[in-house]
Structure formats: structure tokens, C-alpha cells
């Protein structure tokens, strides 16, 4: 009996040690992150719980977009959709101000990069954020690469005035892997928006492993530390009766009288009597995990995982276990 008790206790202690070690291993060398891509920062209970439950250490918050704006006379490109803070930021999470810049705006960066840096500083000051890292998101291509790289150099000089020793990071889209890495300290590989959502024949524009595979070969030799961003959002892509793209709807809603006509394709009758199509795009947990494994294997080591994006109504479509697996 005594032996039995000792054995049991020993096993229990061993299990405990293993479990605690397992926890440490899980988070020892990687940092869990998430994007916050909404106009207003106001987390609901589920989202707050999500941050705690998944040990989120970094939150990439979209501060504003820089895009063409016809409203202002003197400024062709202006900050738009500025983040508004309505609730307190979590203490335990590092906030990384993130700015999205359109490709047309990046060409004109010389006219605003100083203002942009000052604005980031003002927002951080106002929101009580002391950033260690600032991220820029731009879908640059060969034609805009020089502008974007020059922007990063110039804006770093400006930002240094406000935040000495600041680290810069940049999003890296799959097609950008073929090019020289931007002059930043770190990159975030965006494994989403891999397909053309405007194409009726695209099955899932958010993430299709087939679209990822061709770029994996560039990962091994990519000369920039990378984190990996994975999609946990869904959307509806709407098409006219002639199958031309009409609308991208983040609000997933199915009208009455919708008839399923394909794996993720629905048809419904418009008020004008014509039929329209809706493609509901969502990435399954299986696909996300497969992608994660493929990319990490190609990269050769474990990467920090960042989910896009913090939204309880979308995240609830995955189980807690699945989310945990994404971050593992």
C-alpha cells in the first residue's frame, strides 16, 4: 500500500515537473503576439481574457493609415482612420505602434515622413505608450521598393529623436521574400491575403497553402529575423450576377433565400431580381497549422507567432485548443 502511495506521489511529482517544464518550453524562446486592427481600442471581456489566456506579450496596434486624401488642399497624403483609445491598455503587453502606408503614398514620403514620426510620438505620448519597436506595413513592390527603403532610413532618423534606440520592423508579404529585405531590425511574414479576392475563381484568398509553397524556398536565406503572422479572420466576398467582384464585406451575414452552390460559395437573389454570389472565406485551423509547420520548417527554426487579428467575434470560430496550437 505504502509503495503504491509512494509510486503514485512520485508519478504525480514527475508529471508536475514535466508540465511546468512544458509551459516554460512553450514560451521560453518565442513571444506570442496579435494584431489590433480596429479604429477604436475597446476590448470586450472575451478579448481581455484572450490576451491573458494565450500569454500575449506583443500587440501590434494600427495607429493610422497613410493614404491619398482628396479632402485636404495642401496635403495629398494624410493620416486616416486614427486609432482612438477608449479603454486602458494592458500593462503586461508590449504595444507596437503600426502604420499602414499605401504604395502610392510611399512614393511621396519625403513630404510627410517628419510629420508622420512626430505624430507617432504625439500619439504614444498621449496614450502613455513607450514603444521599443515601431512597425510599418506597406505592400511595396519592385517599383516602390526604393521609396519604401529610403523612407525607413529617413523615418528611423526622425524617430530616434523621439525614441532613442527604437527598433523598426516591417511586414513582409510572401512576394516580397524574393527581394532584398528592408532596412529594419525585424520582419513579420504575413501568411495571409495570399490570393486575389477579386477573382471569382479564387477558392480562398485569405490563405491557400498552394499560394504559399512557391515562396518557401526564399526563407532559409532571408537575411532578416522573421516572425510569422497567421490569419484568424473571415470575410465575405461578393460578386455580381456576371461574377464580377462587387464588395468585400467584413461583416459575415447571409441574407434570406441564400442557396449554397459551392464549397464556400452561395447564391442569393437581389432585390433587382438578379442573382449575386457570396464567397465566405475562412481559414480552417488545420490549414493554419499546416501552414505554420511548413513555414517554420522552411525557415529552419521556431518563429514568434502573431495572429491577425484581435476580434472576439472572429476568434470565437476557433476553439481554445486550436488557438493554443497556433501559438505552440
Amino acid at each position, binding site marked *: 500500500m505504502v509503495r503504491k502511495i509512494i509510486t503514485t506521489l512520485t508519478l504525480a511529482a514527475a508529471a508536475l515537473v514535466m508540465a511546468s517544464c512544458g509551459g516554460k518550453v512553450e514560451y521560453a524562446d518565442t513571444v506570442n503576439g496579435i494584431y489590433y486592427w480596429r479604429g477604436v481600442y475597446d476590448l470586450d471581456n472575451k478579448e481581455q481574457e484572450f490576451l491573458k489566456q494565450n500569454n500575449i506579450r506583443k500587440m501590434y496596434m494600427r495607429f493610422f493609415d497613410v493614404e491619398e486624401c482628396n479632402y485636404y488642399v495642401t*496635403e495629398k497624403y494624410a*493620416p486616416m482612420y486614427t486609432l482612438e483609445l477608449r479603454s486602458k491598455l494592458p500593462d503586461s503587453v508590449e504595444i507596437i505602434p503600426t502604420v499602414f502606408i499605401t504604395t502610392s503614398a510611399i512614393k511621396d514620403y519625403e513630404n510627410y515622413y517628419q510629420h508622420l514620426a*512626430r505624430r507617432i510620438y504625439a500619439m504614444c*505620448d*498621449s496614450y*502613455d505608450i513607450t514603444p521599443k519597436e515601431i512597425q510599418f506595413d506597406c505592400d511595396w513592390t519592385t517599383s516602390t521598393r526604393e521609396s519604401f527603403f529610403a523612407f525607413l532610413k529617413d523615418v528611423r532618423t526622425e524617430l530616434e529623436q523621439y525614441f532613442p534606440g527604437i527598433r523598426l520592423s516591417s511586414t513582409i508579404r510572401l512576394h516580397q521574400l524574393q527581394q532584398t529585405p528592408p532596412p529594419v531590425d525585424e520582419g513579420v511574414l504575413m501568411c495571409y491575403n495570399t490570393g486575389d479576392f477579386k477573382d471569382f475563381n479564387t477558392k480562398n484568398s485569405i490563405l491557400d497553402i498552394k499560394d504559399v509553397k512557391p515562396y518557401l524556398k526564399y526563407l532559409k536565406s532571408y537575411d532578416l529575423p522573421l516572425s510569422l503572422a497567421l490569419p484568424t479572420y473571415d470575410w465575405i466576398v461578393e460578386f455580381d450576377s456576371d461574377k464580377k467582384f462587387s464588395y468585400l464585406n467584413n461583416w459575415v451575414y447571409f441574407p434570406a433565400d441564400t442557396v449554397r452552390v459551392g464549397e464556400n460559395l452561395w447564391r442569393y437573389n437581389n*432585390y433587382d431580381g438578379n442573382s449575386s454570389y457570396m464567397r465566405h472565406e475562412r481559414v480552417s485551423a488545420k490549414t493554419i497549422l499546416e501552414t505554420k509547420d511548413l513555414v517554420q520548417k522552411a525557415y529552419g527554426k521556431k518563429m514568434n507567432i502573431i495572429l491577425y487579428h484581435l476580434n472576439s467575434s472572429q476568434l470565437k470560430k476557433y476553439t481554445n485548443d486550436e488557438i493554443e496550437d497556433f501559438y505552440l
Partner: protein
Amino acid sequence: MKSKIFTFSIILLLLSGKTMACGGSFYMDPSLHYIFHLGYPKSYAHNDYYTDWKVKNDKIFHDENVAFWHKYTGKKVSKEEVEKAIYSGNKPSKKYEFFKYLIDKNDTVALQYWNIVNGDLGSTIRWERSVWYFPTKNEKTPDPSYNDIPYEITFGTIDHCPNHNIRNRYALQLMRMAFAKRDNKLVVEVWDKYGRKIPASALRTQCKSYYAGAVGNRELSTVAFAEIGYFNPLLDYNTNNIKALYKHIPNSKHLELSVENIVNQHFDNCFGYDTTSRKARKQESEAFHKTAEEILADGKSNNPALWKSAQAAFAYIDGDNALALNLIRQADSLKGTKNVKENIRLMRLLFLASDTTTNDSLYENALLPDLQWLVAQIRKDQNTENGFYYDESFWYEEITGFPQHRVKILRRTILKEIISHFEKKGRQERCLAYLDIYSSLCNRGLDKRHKLSLDYGSRFLIYADTTKVENLKKHLALLQSGGESEMDKFLVKNSSKDYNFLNELIGTKYLRTENWDAAIAYLKNVSKKFRKTQNIHYYLTERNPFGEAWITNSRKAKYRKIESPWEKYNDNPTKLQFCQTMKKLKILSHNGKDASARAEARYAYVVGLYQAFFGRCWSLTRYSDSFDPMYDEHFYPNDRKLLSIEKYIDKTIAMTGSGNKELADKLFVMKYALEIDDLAEYYVPLNDWSKYDNYKRQSEKHDAVVNDMETELFADWSKRCGVVANADYVRHTYCDQLADHRPQIRGTQEHTIFMPINGHMFFEI
């Protein structure tokens, strides 16, 4: 049944509360109701005007600056190089050719100037006015301070500046800095000492804009702003400001805009949500009348009609229609600008239409000339490039001044005044005639195939749908006969003369009363082409009123499969077909071969009734589904129809007996479906008759729960229904709301008189 009534009463309570709270279901632009308009685009009152003014002045100032500094270098530095340097936002350095020239010349005065303009302070001011600006924690305090303003340097430099042109520019910089520091006294001092001497130029305009903002005296500000042509700060206006402006510039073009604004402000104060007190309004009127009389007596104005017509507008707004008419006639005989004259004509028509005492013949004779002119003008406007927008549907566009205003005046004249006149005389058919020309002119914007454009958007249809069928028949007769009087002929000529539409309306009215023969007689005259233009066409063709969708709620695909003697209805689904089928069913329900056949016919008949009046086939009896609260209110009387349908079912159940179990079950479920709350979303799958018992139990439980509540509410509902059911009441409410609905907020004036700093984004160099 009672539970249905309960639901209706709740909805009614909610709707009535909503209607009262927001003053009707319409959101409309403030200017939609203004009666006084002098043809300037409404954008004068908004940022667009500021933007236009700024763009124009930016350009002038920019060119003047570049030309000045180019000349300053003896034309040795090109304009392009000068522009590159001075608008770089950078302090002087040899990087720029222009600055290099100044450095080489050792021109300390000019270099110091550029150091100030493009220095830290200059860039701070520029930053704060930039679209990129975001306040830091410290800047959130209302009064930012600029402790490092180099006053001494600037003052000393101004006084010892050898070049008067640069001296003037220094003066501008000092005003700019002082203004940023809210040092209004210094701004005025600098203006008095240096600014006043600057000859007419963009530089002077710049300096004066700061002075106007800082002077701290509304009258002086008014004059200063008027002189530089910037109207926005003048909007927050009162009669004293107008007097001051008149005193300094008796024929300032801004007087027209200021007077227009003050009349419309009075309109807001009288009819807006934030109305001022009666006493304050009276004082406002008296002050304006007094000022106008003084100005007219003074005789310096070359636009006296402006003042007299504004007095007339004040009188009309104050409710003295006779005085308004008298004054507008006087105004017509005075000298005035073209805009003022047209405005007088429009107001005269409106004031004439507001007469409720004269007999109809004299009333219409008085209206005819101006009405003919206005209708012709609107038609002409609609044939121009922007004509598409001169329609009630585009009220928010405000492309230009008068064309939009003409539509608004016609709208108010007919919907508010003429309708009131004839309603009081009980001549609703005449109201229809006027609304017909109004809708055919001004409701063109209804896209017949667009989901947001319901048929119910036409003012004519709103009225026609709730008036008695006899009035519609009289209107049809007028159109067919061509009329007798001049006004008759004018109305007939300008009406839509859409006989399809009228026949459809009349037929539908008969359909609603189950007068199948009369309905068929009118609906026969409706062409297929017309039917296709109706927004309800889709619903008519897609939904089978004899299908049992009332069971399945929304499972269209399933109910289509039902085999029934009325399945062929789908071959040609129209209102006419529906009436013909219903007529046959009614005959069958009396003459069927046996009780079972008769019961079956009755069952189908009652399904048709339910679908048409309460079910998915609402388009047979209505022109809009229930999203429009107004329409719902119109439709509440049909709850009586619900009672009759229920009785009909009871009788049918009695006739059926135990002979036809399936039919008896269906009838029972249908009766229950009529009673259950739609919001409860009960769903009975087709062909699953075994579940009926379960639903029966639910029904009993449901009834028990609501029984106590509904007993109490029923009495209240009956009273309310009695009021709401009165179509005339609804119609009046509707028209009144249209005419006098005012915006909740007057619109905040971002550029108020003392704060041009918020608006100015000059190239301040």
C-alpha cells in the same frame, strides 16, 4: 388573436415613441425648409466655401510671395528655386540656391526673417495646423504657450528694417505668432502700426485675417472679414453686425448673404428643435424690421428690395401671412439684384399659397402665373447638365443655389400650403392633382429597380394610398377630361397622366376591401410594362399567395413544391390574377359540390387573404413592406382584417368537421400562426403534421402567459388604433412633418468669429 393584438400594440407603442422622439422618420438638411435664399450655393455656409476661399487666396499669396523674392534677388534666382527654398520648411542653408544667394550676400535681415519663418516656432505653428497634428498629453490643455516667441527680435527688426516690403512681412510674422499665443492685443497693435499701411495685396489680406480674428469687437471683425472676402466667420450673426457692415460698406456683396443667414437663423429659432423663447424671437424680428426700415430710409443701398423682402420673410415666419404678402408686393416694386428679385417671386408664390380664406377659384387664379413660371423654370433646370440633381431625392446635394431652391419652394408651396388649403375644404381630389405634378417633376429620382427606392417614396403615392378611392377616381376623371379652368388645364398638362398607375392604385384599393369585381375592372387596365416598373414587381412575381409559406415562415423553396389547385397561379402572378383567383374561390366556397370541397375553397381563400394582408405577399396590398413606420401606421386599421380572417377560419373549421383531418389540422395551425407573435419565430416544418399537438400545447401556454397583460393593453390599443387608423390624421401629420421638420442641430460653426486660426492654413511666409 389577442396575442397578435398584443404584439401590434407593443410595436405601435414603440413606433409612436420613436416617431415622437425623432420628429418623424425623415432626416433632412436644414436648408430644405428655408424660404429665403439668394442663389448662392449652400456651400457658403460650410467648409467648402472656406476651402474655395483658401485655395484661391493660397494661390494668390503663393504667387505673390515667389514673385516678390524672385524680384528681391534681382531675378538672379529663378522662381522655381525660390519656391523650392521658401516652401521647404527648412532654415536657410546653402543647400537651396535662394538661401545661398542670401548667405553669399550676407543679407542678415532676410536671413533672420527666414530663420523665424522656417525655424522651430514657425514649424510648430505649421505643425499645429497640419492634418498630421495630434495633441500630446501636454498640448491637450486649451491654451498652448509659445514662450520662445522672439518678440524683441521681431519688433526690433521691424522698426529698423530698411526694406519696407520685408518690414511688412515681418509684421505678418509677428501677428501670426502673437495670434498663436492668443495675444490678441499685440495682433491689433501690429496691425494698427504696420498692417494698415500695407497696400492692397495678398499680404494685406493675410494680416487682416489675423486682425479680424483678434480685434475682439464683433462689428469691427465683421467689417474686416467682409473686406477680405471671407464669409464663414460672419455666419454667427445678428442685426447689429449687419448694421455695422452696412455702415462701412453699404453695398457689400456680403450683405445679401448676411441677410439670408439672419432670416434663416430666425427660421431655426422659430421651428428648430432648439427654439428660442417667444420673447427673444419677437425681439429678433423687431430689431430686424427696425434696422431694415432705417437702411431703407437711409437710401444708400442699391438693393432695397433685399431689405423689404427679408422683412416679408420675417413676417411669414412669424405667422403674419397678410403682412408678408403685403411686404413682398412692396419689395417687388423696389430695385434689387437679380437674385433678390427671383427670391421675391418665389416667396410671393409661397405666400399666396398660404392663403386659406379666399375661394378656390380666386385662390388658383392668383397662384397660376407664378406656379406656371416656377414649374417651367424647374423643367428648364432639369434639362441642364446638373439637371439630374434638381429633384427632391437629391436635396442633400446642393449643387448650386437657385435650381435646388426652386424645387424646395415648390415642395413647400404644394405639400404645406396648397394641400392645407384644399384639405380644409375637403377637396382631396384637388390635392391629388397638385401632388401629381409635384411628384412627376420632383420625385424623378426614384430608381424603380433599386432596393432602396420604394414605390412609397413618391409624395403622390403617399397621399393617394391613404385617400378614399372616390378621390382617385375623380382625379382620373379630371385627367381624362382635360379639365375646364385654366388651372385644371395646367394641372392636367403637367401631371404624369399615368393611367396605368391610377388604375393600379384604384384596383388595389378595391382589392383591399375584397371587392374583387371592381378590383378586376381597374386592374385589367394595367399594362405588363407598367407592372415591371414597380418596385413591388419582384415580390409579386416571386411569391405565391396561395402557397403555405405562412407555415414555413421563409422556406420558399419548400412551399413551391406544394401541389394544390392554385399552383398555376405562378404562371402569371399579378394582382389581377390574384383577384380573379380569389373571386373564383369565393364562388366555390359557396357553390362547391360538397362541404369538404367548400371548406377547401374557403381554406385557400383564407390563405390568400392572410398572405396578402399579413404574410409574405404584402406586395398585393401594399407598396412597401413594414420597414417604414409611417406605412405601418397606415396599415394598422387592417388589424380588423385579421379579426375577419380568424372568424373565417372558425367557420371553415366548423364546416370541415372530422371529414378531412389534414385540412382541419392545417386550419388549426393557421389559426395558431395568426395568433402567435411573429417575433417568436415559431417554425413549423412542412409535412411534419405530427408536431401539431406540440404546437397546440405551446399555443395554450403562450396564451396563458400573455393573457393578463393583453387584457390591460387591449383597451389602450383600441384607443390608439382609433386615432392612428384615421388616414387623414396620418396624412396631415406626414405633410406637416415634411413642411416643418427642422434639424436637431443647427450645425456647429467650426470657424467662429474669433478663431480664424483653426481655419487658416495659409502659406504664412
